[in-house]
């Protein structure tokens, strides 16, 4: 079982937006931002017209600590831990990269088959319960229209694919949404983001979350890499949490509003 927030104004199985934070445990600004998003939705769902209009038509799902075992480990043993904490037979090393464990060109280039590596894809797709739980949820729900997975750091807004250079069919639309979302984000504190497909902007990666969700038919699949660009990296000062969450929320609203206006 996993802990998930559902924000809903009613209806049955409404089209939905999914947001997850903390899938890589060392990316602490993301879990913290997730907490801020939850509070924001609760406080603003009536007085913020954009948010109110989104919730009139769609539900929002928010998973904040998507990798709980890893998160605990970063607090108690190793602040730089990224992966899950699973033990698979045949190796002394622990953990699977939950962003290489999805069934999208699983095991392909840009993921490692070495269990000791930070990008170890695991013994098979969805081997990690953290990943399987989301896969099952998405398939059972059947009406998720936008999926946003949040990471740090690098200040990037990314869309599929990571596993191949072939552009997604919706590339033009996703690129335009990204341009708008990044402009909204920047408007608050001047934070500069770059945007593009995963494979052209950061690196080739196989078995990634939003490659799978896109191939499931969730057109509006995005990944964020939040602040900063390397000065503090994973150790972002706590005083930057709220500004980061505030600016990111503006970008998330652009994506959610677009989904609401272009339901499919």
């Amino acid at each position, binding site marked *: 079982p996993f802990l998930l927030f559902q924000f809903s104004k009613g209806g049955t199985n409404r089209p939905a937006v999914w947001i997850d934070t903390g899938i890589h445990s060392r990316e602490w600004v993301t879990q913290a931002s997730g907490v801020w998003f939850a509070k924001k939705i609760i406080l603003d769902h009536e007085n913020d017209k954009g948010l109110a209009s989104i919730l009139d038509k769609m539900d929002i799902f928010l998973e904040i600590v998507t990798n709980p075992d890893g998160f605990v480990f970063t607090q108690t043993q190793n602040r730089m831990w990224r992966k899950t904490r699973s033990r698979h037979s045949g190796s002394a090393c622990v953990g699977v990269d939950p962003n290489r464990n999805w069934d999208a060109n699983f095991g392909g280039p840009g993921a490692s088959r070495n269990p000791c590596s930070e990008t170890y894809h695991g013994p098979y797709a969805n081997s990690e319960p953290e990943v399987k739980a989301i896969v099952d949820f998405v398939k059972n729900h059947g009406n998720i229209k936008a999926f946003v997975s949040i990471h740090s750091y690098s200040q990037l807004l990314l869309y599929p694919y990571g596993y191949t250079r072939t552009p997604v069919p919706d590339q033009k639309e996703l690129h335009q949404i990204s341009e708008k979302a990044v402009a909204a984000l920047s408007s608050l504190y001047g934070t*500069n983001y770059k945007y593009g497909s995963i494979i052209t902007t950061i690196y080739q990666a196989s078995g990634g979350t939003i490659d799978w969700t896109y191939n499931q038919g969730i057109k509006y699949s995005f990944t964020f890499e939040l602040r900063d660009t390397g000065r503090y990296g994973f150790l972002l*000062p706590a005083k*930057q949490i709220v500004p980061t969450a505030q600016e990111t929320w503006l970008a998330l609203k652009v994506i959610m509003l677009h989904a609401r206006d272009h339901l499919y």
Partner: protein
Amino acid sequence: EAAMELPPSHYPASRAAALATGYACYRRGSPGRGLALRAVRRARRQDIDDAGRKYHLELVLEDVLDKDSTVNCTAEVLYHLDNKKIAPDVQFTIEGELKNTDEADNIFYNRIKTLEKELVAENIPDSHGNVSPEMEPIHLLAWVASGYVIWQNSKENTKFQLAQIKRVKQVKRSDEYLEFDYLILLHEMVSQEIIPWQMRVLWHPQHGVQVTQDSRQPKQASE
């Protein structure tokens, strides 16, 4: 061969830019001045027969202590052919003046020189990103020195950043230099690995920063 234009937001340009910035920071930095990459304005790439691949970059660098202070920088990065195990060649030009840091550097220098016991510290920044004001120059000195390690070890498929100082110990010296032994963690973006690295850093306000010895360390046992 003619140079090919690269999209500045794509990773080949940003990796070369990170390397050039690390090198420029090493050459121009001090405990009072660190340089970071603000933006890639333009990038071109050229294959050079029997030599390797050269990137021509137009960058904007910022002063990490004063984000409003930026300079333009042109740089050339030559990654040698894989079989030649040598560091990339980097040349750069900074347009305009960098802020003068003599006062801050001298204050730090005198503070350390008059310490009763050699400085020792751990985990800078701490888990929550905190750096105490007294440790800020120590942090910046590591940032500058790590530029050397990053330069020496970068390839076209790597992108290094300083992740954290695990520990720093001042080394007693009888001459006017300050010397510190650092154990740092480097984050390599493509493999996502955290790599411990030890480095000896020499500094004097008039003589710049020098890494005199460095070695990669084995991954920690606490896995």
